[in-house]
């Protein structure tokens, strides 16, 4: 799983630059889709709530005070191992605009027969 964070530098970009950046994401998804590595993905709206405390009695506006922490969306991809997943993540267009990718493995729970 790729979790995309930051890349808020785009906030100050021109319409032309935004469109071109969007094109790069689309091309990347397209590529992953063609190689059969793309499984699913969703963008996330900015903002959100952080619920904590017993019975959820503490609800705040989320921990993401800084642009670099904002999660913009996620992909589920299929790769042989973590190493291959990291290689794939290096092509993420968000990296060009100061963003980062968290690469995580989804745990497969083996149910004993």
């Amino acid at each position, binding site marked *: 799983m790729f979790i995309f964070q930051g890349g808020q530098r785009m906030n100050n970009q*021109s319409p032309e630059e935004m*469109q071109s950046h*969007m*094109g790069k994401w689309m091309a990347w998804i397209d590529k992953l889709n063609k190689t059969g590595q793309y499984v699913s*993905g969703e963008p996330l709206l900015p903002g959100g709530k952080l619920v904590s405390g017993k019975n959820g009695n503490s609800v705040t506006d989320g921990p993401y005070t800084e642009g670099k922490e904002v999660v913009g*969306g996620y992909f589920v991809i299929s790769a042989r191992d973590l190493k291959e997943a990291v290689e794939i993540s290096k092509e993420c267009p968000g990296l060009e605009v100061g963003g980062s990718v968290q690469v995580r493995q989804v745990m497969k729970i083996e149910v004993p027969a």
Partner: protein
Amino acid sequence: MAFVQPKETIQSTIDHLFRHESGKMVSVLSRLLGLQNLETAQDIVQDTLLQAMNTWGFNGVPENPPAWLYRVAKNKAIDFLRREKKFKEISPQYSYLLQSEYSLASTVNNLFLENEIQDSQLRMMFACTHPAIAEESQVALTLKTLCGLSTGEIARAFLTNEETISKRIYRAKEKIKAEKIELTVPQGVELPERLDVVLKSLYLLFNEGYNSSNPDKLIREDLCEEAMRLAFLLTTHGVTNLPKTNALLSLMCFQASRLQARLDDEGNIVLLKYQSRSKWHQPLIKRGIAYLEIASATPEISSYHLEAAIASLHASAPSFEQTDWKSIYHLYELLYEIQPAPIVALNKAIACAYAISNQSALSQLLLIKGLDNYYLYHTSMGEIYFGLKERQKAKDHYEKALLLTASRPEQQLLINKINNCEAGQ
């Protein structure tokens, strides 16, 4: 699973969509919120495009991209109105309708109808070229609000730094507030004068794109395209569709038809004489002729008429040698009568060299004052002296020109010419 396979790559289907729609939406939202809230309108548009970038990048482009953008921008505008309740500050024409929830949504919706969008852009053109705003700021403001260019892009197009452009735009916005400039189309006697300023700013915009010293070819062509798009918009509106508007658009079509032929594959300049005429864009030439015909329906003659007529003679000449230089020279003489500027005199002298002789062109060039720091003046002097076989004088002028241009292709061309002078000695 939300991923939708993009049908085609985004670049091919929606060239400059964000930029063009940004210009439209800023105009419409400024009309809704009042021009005094231009900044808010721009923020809403920026947010809208960011949202589009984030969701389309993941999920693919929606069926009707502009409609998607308008829907989001509308909702953001309505949110702003509800939240701020600053109805007194926004356009008096709409403040009454916007205060009631009942009429709010329909008023906003109506402004996003196609003909209203065009109307808003037209009003914005007049506002950006308001006489209270300095000429240098007018073009910058037009590019920012109507064409969706960022200050960085405008700065690159005009070979200046971002700070200069930011200041120009800032001063323009201050003027809008101080003079309470509104988004209106001028009426009555005011209209022709104000339209002249609009046309002139589009002419300057096009020229900057057509003959810019900017090495970045892409931005250069974009400026031409923007100027043509806005000039075309003027021809679609009753009050601004005048003969001179059509003449200006005709001129732009003819000049733009040669854009592809003016540079070779390595980006070097190809002079008119050596251009491959098959590379001239015929559909644009046809459009140029059509607009010139519309422009000539009345006896009124503007400088744009004469410039378009000159351009049409170049466009219709089968070869450089078969160009009707006599007619071109005559048209320049007429142009000089209504516009006795040194730059017109320079072009007239060049036409004279072909129509009459190098000698009489030289005597005209020597009379021109005020172009000593203009590289094309010295390039032309060099050409004429070269034609008169005075190679040393030709070389001196080419060298002066070389110091006066920052454009690499121009410099290369001049270096070639200087080498030619030396080879002949």
